[in-house]
């Protein structure tokens, strides 16, 4: 078009006015006009025909949710505005603009909602309006809400809808989590009762078999046993597991009359472990051997603690080192120093990022869940063993779900069928 226009201008300047040229000029102009019409043809915009405004369900209050069906004009050149004002207001143009976004964005499918809490299709627009600069959304106060559709200078408002935000007492989006947790809890208690009536086979864990060997070696050498409970305090299950295993280790150490040292990073954990150790010495029939300062506090600072424990390892040269619980970067500083002293080292951690360091520097490593299973292996109590059976069944269920999901996803990708995706969405919501 541009080239043709240039030619027209050039020929007009040249003064060439033959009928053929006039004909071509007329055809060119008509074509340009048609093309222009095609390029600038736009579907007229309107307001969303159906709009839902309501208190956001399953939240702590202070927000409203706006939903509306996707429209044929949705695209990057059209924008939506969410406007909020006082409940008594009726003119949306005076409302505060709480959000503005392209019309081809903000869908329900982008949010983390489950199918049992969705009232509309996932393709609907969905936006949660919270307090912003200029307007605070308060619980119990009603607000007027409108959606504006905009293109260039055009701005069309939906009728005003009034809604009142309020907090909720239950998050129904997490219902699946509650049901799964309760089912797993029920399963654990069932397997515990089952284990009390039946013998359950336990596979051997070399790291736990080596506990006796390590303490025995320390006894033979007349060296102490060093036991660490990790970096976290007792809010972490791994620290609780470490404290439980400490009871078993302390009992063996008491029976063998071997010195036990338990340096701590957290004073409350220290106090709890003191009680556990005391009880272990009582159960072993050696209360006179119990020392209050077997458990002692060093510092809560990560590297200061590592330096102090390294110093203890180098000076006292314990023959057996136990590293149970959760660890961070200090793991290698501790275990490599222990390895250099020639001690038998047994580690157990749920910190997956530290596992390689423990595996490379320790003689035995309890990987992940084995840390939680350790007390069952050491005590052989039916209650503990039953718990392990429950965990195994839980893992089997998860593995089955993963396998089914993999098959469905593969089948859907290969055949192009839609039903596998529906089932995958279901699994995704339930997980």
């Amino acid at each position: 078009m541009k080239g043709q226009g240039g030619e027209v201008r050039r020929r007009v300047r040249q003064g060439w006015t033959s009928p053929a040229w006039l004909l071509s000029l007329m055809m060119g102009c008509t074509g340009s006009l048609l093309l222009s019409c095609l390029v600038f043809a736009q579907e007229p915009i309107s307001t969303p025909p159906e709009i839902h405004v309501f208190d956001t369900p399953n939240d702590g209050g202070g927000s409203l949710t706006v939903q509306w069906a996707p429209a044929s004009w949705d695209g990057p050149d059209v924008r939506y505005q969410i406007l909020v004002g006082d409940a008594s207001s009726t003119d949306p143009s005076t409302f505060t603009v709480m959000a503005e976004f392209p019309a081809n964005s903000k869908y329900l499918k982008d949010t983390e909602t489950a199918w049992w809490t969705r009232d509309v299709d996932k393709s609907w627009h969905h936006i949660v309006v919270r307090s912003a600069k200029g307007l605070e959304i308060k619980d119990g106060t009603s607000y007027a809400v409108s959606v504006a559709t905009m293109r260039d200078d055009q701005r069309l408002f939906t009728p005003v809808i009034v809604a009142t935000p309020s907090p909720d007492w239950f998050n129904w989006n997490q219902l699946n989590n509650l049901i799964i947790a309760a089912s797993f809890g029920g399963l654990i208690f069932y397997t515990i009762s089952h284990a009390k009536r039946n013998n359950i086979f336990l596979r051997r864990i070399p790291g736990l078999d080596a506990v006796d060997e390590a303490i025995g070696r320390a006894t033979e050498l007349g060296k102490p046993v060093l036991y660490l409970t990790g970096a976290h305090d007792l809010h972490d299950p791994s620290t609780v597991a470490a404290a439980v295993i400490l009871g078993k280790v302390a009992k063996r150490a008491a029976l063998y009359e071997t010195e036990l040292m338990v340096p701590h990073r957290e004073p409350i954990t220290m106090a709890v472990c003191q009680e556990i150790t005391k009880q272990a010495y009582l159960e072993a029939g050696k209360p006179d051997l119990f020392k209050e300062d077997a458990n002692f506090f060093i510092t809560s600072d990560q590297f200061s603690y590592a330096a102090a424990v390294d110093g203890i390892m180098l000076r006292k040269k314990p023959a057996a080192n136990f590293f149970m619980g959760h660890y961070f970067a200090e793991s290698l500083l501790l275990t490599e120093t222990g390895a250099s002293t020639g001690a038998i080292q047994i580690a157990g951690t749920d910190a997956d990022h530290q596992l390689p360091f423990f595996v490379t520097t320790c003689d035995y490593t309890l990987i992940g869940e084995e840390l939680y299973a350790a007390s069952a292996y050491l005590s052989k109590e039916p209650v503990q063993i039953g718990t392990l059976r429950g965990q195994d069944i839980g893992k089997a269920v998860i593995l089955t779900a993963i396998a089914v999901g993999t098959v469905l996803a593969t089948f859907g990708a290969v055949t192009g069928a839609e039903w596998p995706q529906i089932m995958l969405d279901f699994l995704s919501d339930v997980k």
Partner: protein
Amino acid sequence: MIFLRRQLPLLITLVAGLLFAAQYYVPHPASEQMLTSATKWLQIIGGFALVLGVTSLFHLHAVKIRRQEAGWGYSLVLYAGMLGTIAVGLWADGKESIEGVMTSFGWVYNYMMVPLQGTMFAILAFFIASAAYRSFRARSREAAVLLVAAVIVMMGRVPLGEYLVPLSGDVASWILNVLNASVRRAILIGVSLGAIALSFKIIFGVERSYLGGGKE
């Protein structure tokens, strides 16, 4: 006495455990407020517990100094360091700087504590090298697999390695994103189930050895 030592702690554990498990499902501000309050309580209790810890530390090192056990000089250094830091901290009102001027407390922190922490962290590089050397000697089949995987990943993660063996980048990514990620997820699933099972046992009083063993 048994009630105070056993039943009461178990009752508190049951009530608190169920309450805070339920808190996860309740989005109401009252629930959030309860969690915030409990967190503050824990911080306050932790503060008091620190006194317990420091008392333990002082006692342990006082005994070492009194008996002149091996390495008792280090205990003296600890006493000097701790008392000195407390003194300058009180002198500086716990502030590292006042009106842009570094206090003695700030000096202790910035020119003693931070470099010492940095030194300990830096040692990690050498420890990684020595641990890697010991592990990669390929004495067993597992160690050989570890060695091969490590070499490929190292080649794929450094520019020179990828320049020399262009395929190593893709292979390293595959090892990390497929093999490594799947194993990590398997471990995490096991850990999560183990943690949940332990939590159930503690909440319902099945596991009570953390109270000090015993089965009464």
